[in-house]
C-alpha cells in the first residue's frame, strides 16, 4: 500500500452484479475506460434474485463497508421476474437495516443495463463517495475479522 493511499479511508465495497445486465454494464464501463475506485470488487451472480440477505450480512460481518446490488431494469430481467423479487427482498432488508441503526446508504440497489457503462461507472463513483463519507462499518462487523 502506498503512503498516499494510507492517508484516506479506503472502504471495502462488494458489488453483486447480475450476469446479463449489470456485469455486462461493468464490462462496458471497462471497455469504455470509465473509471471508478478500486475499492469496488464485483461478484458475478446469475441474477439479482440470487443475492441472499445472508451474503450481504456476511460481507458486513467480514469487514465490508458497503454492499451494492446491481441488476437488470425492472421489466428487463433475463429471467423475467428475478429482479422484481430482488427488489422486494432488498427493500425490506434495507429498511430493517436502517431500523436497527445501520447507516442508510451502506446498502444500495441500482438497475444497470448492459448498455449503461456510463451509469455503472457513475453509480460506483457515487457509492464509493457515499461510503467514504459514512466511514468504516462498525455496526455490523465481526470484530474478530479486523485487521
Amino acid at each position, binding site marked *: 500500500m502506498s503512503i498516499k493511499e494510507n492517508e484516506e479511508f479506503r472502504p471495502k465495497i462488494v458489488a453483486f452484479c447480475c450476469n446479463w445486465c449489470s456485469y455486462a454494464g461493468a464490462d462496458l464501463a471497462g471497455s469504455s475506460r470509465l473509471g471508478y475506485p478500486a475499492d469496488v470488487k464485483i461478484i458475478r451472480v446469475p441474477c439479482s434474485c440470487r443475492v441472499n440477505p445472508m451474503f450481504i450480512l456476511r460481507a458486513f460481518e*467480514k*469487514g465490508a463497508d458497503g454492499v451494492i446490488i446491481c441488476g437488470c431494469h425492472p421489466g428487463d430481467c433475463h429471467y423475467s421476474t428475478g429482479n422484481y423479487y430482488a427488489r422486494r427482498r432488498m427493500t425490506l432488508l434495507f429498511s430493517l437495516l436502517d431500523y436497527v441503526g445501520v447507516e442508510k446508504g451502506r446498502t444500495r440497489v441500482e438497475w444497470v443495463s448492459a448498455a449503461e457503462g456510463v451509469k455503472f461507472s457513475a453509480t460506483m463513483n457515487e457509492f464509493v463517495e457515499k461510503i467514504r463519507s459514512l466511514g468504516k462499518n462498525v455496526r455490523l462487523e*465481526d470484530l*474478530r*475479522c479486523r*485487521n
Partner: protein
Amino acid sequence: MYKIAKANLPALFRLIAENQELYLPVNTADQVNFAAWTEDAQVDLDKLKTVKSPKDVFFPQSENLYSCVKDGKKISIEPEALKEQNFVVFGMKACDIRGVEVLDKVFLAEPVDSFYKARRDHGTIVAMACHEPEESCFCKVFGIDCADPAADVAAWMIGDELFWKPITEKGEALTKLAESLLENADEAKVEAEKTAIRSIVEQLPYSDLSLEGWNGDVLMDKFNSPVWEELYKPCLACGTCTFVCPTCQCYDIKDYDTGHGIQRYRCWDSCMYSDFTMMAHGNNRTSQMQRFRQRFMHKLVYFPANNGGMYSCVGCGRCVEKCPASLNIVKVVKAFQKQGGSNS
C-alpha cells in the same frame, strides 16, 4: 463479622474494582445478569435470581482456545493467554456456588481444564444469602442452605445493611482491601435472618420434593422408562434450560475464519440441540425424546454415579421459570414419582 451500609456499597464496589475486575448482578434492558461493574452499571442486589447463572464468570459462554495465524502458506499457532488477573464475583447465591462446585468436578478433574482453573484460582467469591426465596426454588432438596452460603466471603443483606463474613484466605484478603469501608458487627441480626430464611424455605412448594428412587443402581430402569415418551413432547428443543443452568457444562469447539487465520473457540452447547455431538456419520441421539432424556439422566443419574452421589442439579429453579413450554426438572422428578417408583 463486619457490616457496611447499603448506601456505601457503590464506594465498596469502586474500591474493589480499582485494581481488579468485579462481577455482580447488573440490570441491562430490564434483565438482571452478572456483568462487569462499571461506574454507570445499574447494580441490582435485590433480584433473587439472575436470568443466567453466574457460571459464565468461570466458564464463559464462548472463549478462544487458540488462534492459527496465516502468513501465505505458513501457519503458526498462538495459544490464548490464561487468566492472570484477580477478580471478584459479588452476590452469588448458595445454589450458584454449588453449581460452581459441580463445574469443579468436571473441569478440575484430570485432565484439568487450564482455562477454567486459571479463573477459579484468580476469582474471589462473595456469596449472598437469599433474602426472600421464591416458589421455584428447591435448593433444600439438594442439601443447600441458602441462608448460610459458603464461599470466600458470605454476606447477608438485612434492611439497609450488608453483613460481611470472611471465610477463606481469599476472603480475608478481600476484607482487608475493603477494611476502610467495613465496620465490626455482631452476628445476632444475621442469625435472625438465617432463621427467617430457613422458615420460608420450609414453606416452599418444592422443598418437599423427594429424590427417592434416583439414587442407587437405577440407570437402566430410568433409561428405559416409558415416561420419557410422554414427558418430552412439549419440549421445543431450545437451549434455554441449558443456558440458564448453573451446572450445564457441555461445550462445542468451533473454528472461525477471520480472514487472516482461524480462531478456535469453545462455546456452550446444549444437549437439547439436534446437532449436539454431531459427528460425521450423524448423531448418536436421533430423537428429541433421547435428547430430552439425556439432559435429565445426566443431572440425576449419570453425574451422581460418577461423582459420589452429587447431583448436577442445584435447585436454583431457573429452568422452572424460563422454559418456554413450562417443562422442568421438577416435573420430571414428579412424573417418575407418580409413575410409582417402579425401580425394582
